[in-house]
Structure formats: structure tokens, C-alpha cells
């Protein structure tokens, strides 16, 4: 981690510092040139007698162009020979041509543009400096994220507390984290109680209480108690490392709208070179004025700006990623930003997405002795990993489990097995229908539970009903707020669940969701998404573990989870805090970002479309052209930074 951090931090700062140095040195020499030239042009006053002034300018301009601007000249010339043209190729050709006129000036054939060369280089350097600073600002949040990891850790070794670099921490080490300290790596609390500020990683603003057995995330801050944490994940496997990887990869993904700009950027420089030569030839041919022709063609070279085009999307995406990361919204694919605009339907998985995903038993109806029922059901459900099974097992909290044979999980429907030779079946209506078990006797009771939004598990022994267990999963408070906002913004909100219709409708009503697709087996969710895609683009919000296929099928997959539980590889967007408000924010952020990208591309295109013909027409002085060029890319980056003003909620 430490190495990574340094690698990230230095190049950017080094770039800014180096531009700054060049900028200062360039202007020290360029300022006298400007004064000399202006006093001649504007006041017809010669500070230094001709031709000495030309010699002085030639001498002053040399270091500006060829020493302080050496990196640009070198890169540019190299580009011309290797056919990997870039921005530098244009600037270096422009300045070299301009400077050379100063040498030939003494032969009397051309006007002296050597001062102009220095001014172009000085303005170019200034522009690059401002731009690199703005770019640094655009990536500030992401850089903060990259540096978030702890550097040192206090661990217990041989019953002694020692501080060691984070790289030396091994899984299994017990770390001691005092109040106010950073938790050095992912782990599980083995001793102590505290609350932990996880906002930097998950965007969750309230501290989260941690007690023995709870998972903690590396790089989060311990608030008030001492925590003893056993390290479980280190290095590249930590939650933070995964987030960083994801954010970095996202920067490499492309937003489709950028394609045209990228294509143009890649052929831009050779086109401008050709255009500049043509401009020179036609000006010379038609006007016969060599000096003017050179001036105009230099202006064409330096006004063209592929940078504005190339920066339009990545800078906006960068700012947006940073804003998202701060709120626990991770953009995995740039494409999602563009697609989000088209989304008409937002589909939510129920369990764990709209609800807390921690179901509890809220009612038991039993025809036999209740404890007897719990003994049977508890023993059976103990063997399943399903949240409902866990809730039932927890409620039964048996000391001794009965022996189960022939246990089987019936996905999305229930479980079955044999206890003491008796066939036990625990499951939902679908399962009962499937097995042709008549539930008429219990119907009223079941409906009663379902109307309250409970999920009912019907218990059957040897094909006879013996009880019903009602399980409820509480709705997250902010689900209601978030759905309300989405409904107001005219999204079609749909809940998808394995629950039966009555239960699902009740939950939907409580949280304000408009439509319900009930009785869906987990593996069919993706198919349902596909069916809905006939009506428009679908965003699917789900947990990323069970819902991975649905997330993939959806036009925009939004994976949601709390802290380390999220499957970060699923979904186009990942929400690290388990709140649907994040969905609202993610939608708003995506839309705002895309708008910003469009704006940027518009300005970049408009600039080049207007400025290049003006330069060809000869109405722009080369120095003015260079200033305009520098301003255009600064504008684009600054505009991207303005994205931060967007209110997400």
C-alpha cells in the first residue's frame, strides 16, 4: 500500500511543480520581449535600436523555446518522426518555425516572429500549469481514497504490543486499535466495544457500533473504545484495495459518447499539420506575402486543441467518481453514466435491498405443542443458509438438534428432510402447490400473516399441516424516502421477490413501491428483467450475490450491500452503504455527470470548429491563438470541476 501511494502521489505533483518552474523562468525572459515588441508596435518607440532589438529578442527567446520548452520540443519532434503525433508536435513545429523567422530576418525576407515563438511557449506552459492543477483538483477525492490505507499497525505478538508497518501484518494477527485511530486492515472484533466511523469507505455518515464478532473495515476510524481486531484480510484482498482497484479500472472504461471525440483526437494532429501546410501554401500563393503566410500557418498550428476534446470526458468522469466514492457510490463502468439517462424502470430486489435483510420470526401458529414444532423446524432449518432459515433457527435456539436425513434445499421454495422417519416439509405456498398439499385449514391464518407483509413458512409432517411460522423483514427507513423520490421523478418502480403476492403487496404498500412481481425464483429474476426491457431501459438494484445475473441483464446494474458484504464485482455501479438513498444519489450523479460530459464535448467541438477557420482566415495573431487554445482546455477541466456543485440530496 505504501508503495502504491507514493507512486500515485508523486507524478501529479511533480508535473505541476515542473510546469510551474518552466512557467516562471519562461516569463522572466518573455516579459522583456513583450515590452520591447509592444512598445514598437503600439507606440512606435524603439527601446533598443534596430536591428539590435531583434538580436536581443532572438537571444532571450532561445532559452524559452529550446531550454524551458525542451520537453515539449523533444516530444513534439519525436512525434513527427515516429508518427505518434501529439499536442507537442503542433506547439513545437509552431514555435520552431516562428523562431526560425528571427534568424532569417537578417536576410531581409521575412518578418521576425521569434518573440512570438517565446510568447507561444510561455503561454503554452502557463496553460499547461493551470490545466495540470485543475486536473489535480479533479482527482483529489480519488487520490485521497488511494492514500486512505493505514501505514502502521499495532499488533499483539507474544503478548507484547508492537508497532509494525502494515505490510508485515499477517492474517490472524490481533491488532489493538485505540480511540481515534485508524483500523489498519479488515478484521473481526475479538474484544472490546466501540463505534466506528466508516464514512470514508462506505459513505455512511453515522458511526457504526461494533462488538465482539463484528466485521470491521480497514482504514475506518475507531471512535470511542479500544478494539481488539483479528486481521482477516490484508494487502490486495482488503475491502479498500478492492474499492481502489475498481475506481482505477473505471477510469479506464469509456463512456460511449466519448468515442467520436477519441477518434477525432487520434487523427487530429496530422489533419492540423496538413491544414497548416495548405494554409501556408494558399496564403503565399494568393497574397505573395511570405511573412503573413508564416504567421497564419503558425496560428493554425497552435490554435488547434485536441486536449479539450480528449479531456472532456475523463475529467468529468474523474470528478464524478470522486464525488461518488465520498458517498459510497462506486462507478464501475463509465458506460453506466450514459445508460442511466435512458432508464425508465427501476427494479428492486426485496430482501436486503428494500428491507434490512435480517428477517425475524414474528408469529408461530402450531397445531402441535409449540416447542415440538420448533424442535422439528429448528433442526431442519439449521442445515440451510437462507436468511429465513437462519431466522427460524435463531428463534428455535435449540440446545439439541434432531437427526435429519435426506435433507434438501428446494431453492426459493423451502426445505425438506426426514426426522425419525417422518417426512418433514417446510416451505412456501409454491412448494405446497407443487406437492399438492391442501392448505385450506390454515388459509385464514396464513392470509392474516401475509396481509401484514410477513413471509409464511408452512410446516408439513407426513403430508399433513402442523404449523405456520411467520417471518418478517423490516423495511429500511430510508427506503420509503428514496422510493418516494423515484416515484416523483416518474420512474416505474418495481419490487421483485420470491414472496407470494399478498406478502409482497403488503410490503410494497408500506414502502410506496408501485408494482410487484411476486413468486419469482432467484434464477428467474434475470428473465423478468429481460421481459421488462421491452418497455424501456431497466436499472436493477440488488445484493450482487444472489442477484448477479439480474444485475448483469439489466441496462444498469446497481449492486448494494453494507460494508464488506458487497460483491463488488457485480453491477455497473456499486453502493457500499446499504441505503436506497444511495440509488437516488447514484442516478442523480450519473445524470449530472453525463450532462457535464455533453457540455464539455460541445464546448470542445465548438471551440475547434470556430477557432480553426478563424486562424486559417488569418484574423488571429498566433499569440492570441495560443491563448485561446490554452483557455479552451482549461475551460473544459474547470467545467468538469464544477460538477461538484450538483446537489445529490
Amino acid at each position, binding site marked *: 500500500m505504501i508503495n502504491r501511494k507514493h507512486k500515485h502521489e508523486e507524478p501529479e505533483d511533480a508535473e505541476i511543480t515542473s510546469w510551474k518552474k518552466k512557467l516562471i523562468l519562461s516569463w522572466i525572459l518573455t516579459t522583456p520581449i513583450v515590452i520591447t515588441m509592444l512598445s514598437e508596435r503600439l507606440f512606435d518607440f524603439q527601446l533598443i535600436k534596430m536591428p539590435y532589438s531583434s538580436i536581443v529578442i532572438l537571444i532571450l527567446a532561445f532559452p524559452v523555446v529550446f531550454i524551458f520548452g525542451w520537453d515539449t520540443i523533444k516530444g513534439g519532434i519525436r512525434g513527427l518522426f515516429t508518427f505518434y503525433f*501529439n499536442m507537442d508536435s503542433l506547439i513545437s513545429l509552431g514555435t520552431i518555425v516562428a523562431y526560425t523567422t528571427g534568424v532569417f530576418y537578417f536576410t531581409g525576407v521575412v518578418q521576425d516572429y521569434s518573440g512570438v515563438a517565446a510568447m507561444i511557449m510561455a503561454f503554452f506552459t502557463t496553460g*499547461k500549469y493551470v490545466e495540470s492543477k485543475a486536473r489535480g483538483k479533479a482527482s483529489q477525492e*480519488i487520490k485521497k481514497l488511494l492514500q486512505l490505507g493505514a501505514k502502521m499497525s499495532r499488533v499483539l505478538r507474544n503478548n507484547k504490543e508492537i508497532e509494525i508497518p502494515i505490510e508485515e501484518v499477517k492474517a490472524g494477527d490481533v491488532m489493538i486499535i485505540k480511540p481515534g485511530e485508524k483500523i489498519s486492515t479488515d478484521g473481526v472484533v475479538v474484544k472490546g466495544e466501540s463505534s466506528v466511523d466508516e464514512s470514508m469507505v462506505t459513505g455512511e455518515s453515522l458511526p457504526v457500533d461494533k462488538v465482539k464478532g463484528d466485521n470491521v473495515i480497514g482504514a475506518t476510524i475507531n471512535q470511542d473504545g479500544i478494539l481488539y481486531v483479528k486481521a482477516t484480510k490484508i494487502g490486495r484482498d482488503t475491502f479498500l484495495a478492492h474499492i481502489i482497484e475498481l475506481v482505477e479500472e473505471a477510469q479506464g472504461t*469509456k463512456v460511449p459518447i466519448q468515442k467520436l471525440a477519441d477518434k477525432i483526437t487520434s487523427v*487530429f494532429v496530422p489533419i492540423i499539420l496538413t491544414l497548416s501546410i495548405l494554409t501556408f501554401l494558399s496564403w503565399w500563393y494568393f497574397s505573395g506575402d511570405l511573412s503573413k503566410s508564416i504567421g497564419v500557418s503558425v496560428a493554425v498550428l497552435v490554435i488547434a486543441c485536441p*486536449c479539450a*476534446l*480528449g*479531456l472532456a470526458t*475523463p475529467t468529468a468522469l474523474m470528478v464524478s467518481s470522486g464525488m461518488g466514492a465520498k458517498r459510497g457510490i462506486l462507478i464501475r463502468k463509465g458506460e453506466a453514466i450514459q445508460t442511466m439517462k435512458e432508464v425508465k424502470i427501476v427494479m428492486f430486489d426485496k430482501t436486503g435491498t428494500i428491507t434490512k435483510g435480517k428477517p425475524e420470526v414474528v408469529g408461530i401458529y402450531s397445531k402441535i405443542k409449540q416447542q415440538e414444532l420448533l424442535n422439528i423446524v429448528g433442526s431442519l432449518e439449521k442445515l440451510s443458509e437462507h436468511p429465513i432459515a437462519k431466522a427460524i433457527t435463531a428463534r428455535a435456539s435449540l440446545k439439541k438438534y434432531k437427526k435429519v436425513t435426506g435433507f434438501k434445499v428446494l431453492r426459493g421454495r423451502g426445505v425438506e428432510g426426514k426426522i425419525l422417519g417422518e417426512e418433514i416439509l417446510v416451505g412456501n405456498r409454491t412448494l405446497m402447490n407443487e406437492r399438492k398439499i391442501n392448505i385450506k385449514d390454515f388459509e385464514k391464518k396464513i392470509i392474516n400473516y401475509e396481509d401484514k407483509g410477513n413471509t409464511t413458512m408452512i410446516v408439513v409432517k407426513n403430508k399433513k399441516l402442523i404449523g405456520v411460522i411467520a417471518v418478517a423483514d423490516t423495511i429500511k427507513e430510508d427506503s420509503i424516502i428514496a422510493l418516494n423520490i423515484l416515484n416523483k421523478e416518474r420512474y416505474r418502480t418495481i419490487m421483485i421477490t420470491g414472496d407470494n403476492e399478498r406478502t409482497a403487496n403488503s410490503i410494497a404498500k408500506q414502502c410506496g413501491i408501485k408494482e410487484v412481481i411476486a413468486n419469482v425464483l432467484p434464477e428467474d429474476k434475470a428473465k423478468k428483467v429481460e421481459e421488462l426491457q421491452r418497455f424501456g431501459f431497466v436499472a436493477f438494484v440488488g445484493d450482487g450475490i444472489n442477484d448477479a445475473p439480474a444485475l448483469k441483464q439489466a441496462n444498469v446494474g446497481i449492486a448494494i450491500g453494507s460494508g464488506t458484504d458487497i460483491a463488488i464485482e457485480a453491477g455497473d455501479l456499486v453502493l457500499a452503504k446499504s441505503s436506497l438513498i444511495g440509488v437516488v444519489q447514484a442516478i442523480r450523479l450519473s445524470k449530472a455527470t453525463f450532462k457535464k460530459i455533453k457540455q464539455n464535448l460541445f464546448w470542445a467541438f465548438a471551440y475547434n470548429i470556430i477557432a480553426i477557420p478563424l486562424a486559417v482566415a488569418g484574423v488571429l495573431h498566433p499569440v492570441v491563438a495560443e491563448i485561446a487554445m490554452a483557455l479552451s482546455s482549461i475551460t473544459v477541466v474547470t467545467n468538469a470541476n464544477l460538477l461538484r456543485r450538483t446537489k445529490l440530496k
Partner: protein
Amino acid sequence: MKKLKLIIEGMHCASCASNIEKSLKNTRGIKTASVSLMLKRGTVEAEDSVREEEIRKAVARAGYKLTKIE
């Protein structure tokens, strides 16, 4: 196939990033390449046979310096 992360020095404009991408993609065995100017990083997917040296050369051909491969 392997996925490599590159840290690249010397980029300062958008055409720089696209030049490096172009040069990398023209290298035999490299399937995909994407370079971020903002992060000064790149990612390539390459066949296992591709040596680090070839990637380094591809970056150098476009005029930039590859400082690290992960």
C-alpha cells in the same frame, strides 16, 4: 491471458494517452489496452507470452516512460 497494470510517466495531454493505447494495441499479443491520463495509469490484457520488455518498448515507442508494471 494476463492483466497488467502500468504506471506511465510523461503524459500531459489527451493525445498522449491515445498514442500509448495505439502503440500498445499494435504490439503482438496485447489484446486490449486502456490508458488514463488522469491517473497516469494503464491496463493491458495480454497473452501470457508477452514479456514486460515488449510492453515497455511499446510505451517508449509512443514517447513515454513506463515506470512500473503490476
